């Protein structure tokens, strides 16, 4: 089976000729289809840079990036066939305040010229999937932070991408809502069988969600090590009190202290 995401010697330089910044060293990595991968690391380790490169928001300086076997970049042109396999969720929900919730969710479909009836039907079924049914006609400002983020996830899922890329999606939420959203995200992932790559700086969140954790270290950003999380699914919040969970968390924390 082709890898969902394949990076070959992908690196990223920022800055100017006089003051170059190596944001990410040449990186080789593969994400398998249906896998839940979490990118974890201290700030400045290039985890967001890496995710935004996979999402096609920034261009890699060198290397080759393939999504479901297709090249994401052809020269400086983003390949729409590869981009349509990607759904992005950001730290902020980034809903358009001038669109109702259902119109926000259906926006990608509208841009792809899907007829109104069909796309609103799709939006309605997605609000059920992410647990905000009944809020279709509301403005984004009328929803809580957690509900807005659910709508953002629904929008990313609307055109049925194979891969969901999430950049600290629950970072702006309170701890209780965050736990709840992690449970829901796990359910969503198990129900839909998508590939998910998620960025976080919370060790517990990483261990709770991931099949594999990619630990990144800063200056310059690079992959430090990859940790498997063999805990059985579905995981409940109580898994966090098990010795196995806490062992993984402890090892990761020690390693993080060493590298940051």
């Amino acid at each position: 089976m082709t890898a969902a995401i394949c990076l070959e010697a992908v690196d990223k330089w920022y800055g100017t000729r006089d003051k170059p910044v190596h944001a990410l060293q040449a990186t080789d990595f593969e994400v398998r289809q249906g896998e839940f991968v979490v990118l974890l690391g201290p700030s400045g380790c290039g985890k967001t840079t890496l995710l935004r490169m996979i999402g096609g928001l920034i261009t890699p300086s060198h290397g080759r990036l393939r999504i479901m076997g297709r090249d994401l970049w052809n020269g400086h042109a983003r390949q729409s066939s590869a981009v349509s396999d990607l759904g992005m969720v950001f730290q902020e929900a980034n809903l358009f305040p001038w669109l109702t919730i259902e119109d926000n969710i259906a926006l990608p479909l509208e841009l792809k010229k899907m007829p109104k009836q069909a796309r609103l039907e799709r939006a309605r079924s997605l609000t059920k999937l992410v647990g905000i049914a009944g809020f279709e006609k509301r403005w984004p400002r009328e929803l809580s932070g957690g509900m807005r983020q659910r709508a953002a996830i629904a929008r990313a899922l609307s055109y049925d991408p194979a891969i969901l890329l999430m950049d600290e999606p629950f970072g702006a939420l309170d701890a209780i809502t965050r736990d709840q959203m992690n449970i829901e995200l796990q359910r969503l992932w198990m129900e839909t069988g998508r590939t998910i790559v998620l960025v976080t700086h919370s060790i517990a969140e990483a261990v709770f969600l991931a099949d594999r954790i990619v630990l990144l270290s800063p200056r310059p950003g690079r992959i430090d090590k990859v940790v498997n999380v063999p805990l059985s699914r579905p995981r409940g919040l109580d898994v966090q009190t098990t010795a196995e969970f806490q062992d993984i968390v402890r090892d990761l924390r020690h390693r993080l202290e060493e590298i940051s």
Partner: protein
Amino acid sequence: MIVTQVNTQEQPPELPTDRIGFVRYMPWITTPLLCAVLIAVWSLYVAKSGISPFVLPAPSAVLQAWLDMLQSSRAWNDVLATVYATLAGFFWAVVAGVGLGVPIARVRWLEQTLNPFIIASQVLPKVALAPLFIVWFGFGITSKVLIAAILAFFPILTNTVLGVKSIDQGHRDVMISLNTTRWQVFRRLELQSSLPYIITGMEVGIVLALIGAIVSEYIGGDYGLGHLLISRMNAFETDGLFAVMIHMAILGFIFYFGISALRRWLTPWHDSAR
């Protein structure tokens, strides 16, 4: 030991009475009342001081002059001329202001190139251009439309630039991640997101367009409310002068509330529409 008596019943304490209803309807009573008082004072002053009606006519005379104006077809033609010059000027100001504002906000070198010119023409009192335009374009409607357009143009331009610059980077990221075309970004994000700003510019612009139309009618041509005002002044018809001012004020109100209605219709999602 002092034992305070505890009220075990679930009763709210004495809460203030609901005064929101009264406060909401109060302006509907107080504002007309204030108007009535002002008119009464004016009336009384004219009657007691014996001031010449050429300087200050009585409110009743102004009312009569205004009612006469409503029945005069000549005056209605003047109203129409002013409305046309204002709206046509405003229309071109919106087209030019939004059409130039979006690229200026997006292209940095364009902004840097044009900024000195924009600032220079901002500080120049634009009504000073009116005589020049009459020299160039004659006493016809063209010079009036142009003056109205130039006055309305700048607030619309500057607000459009501000609006496009204030677009959330996160919203742009969403559009990029959806692999949208340049036109889709303009149509679905930039225009929508800056619409509240553009409408704010239009609110200022429409009133300035009216001023531009009236001022250019002062100095040239033989129609329009501005022209009518000057001819009333020359004829020492001070009550008629007031009547034209009432017309102008009503026009200003109608234009302004037209734009406010546009705001509620186009941007019901924005705080400014609530």
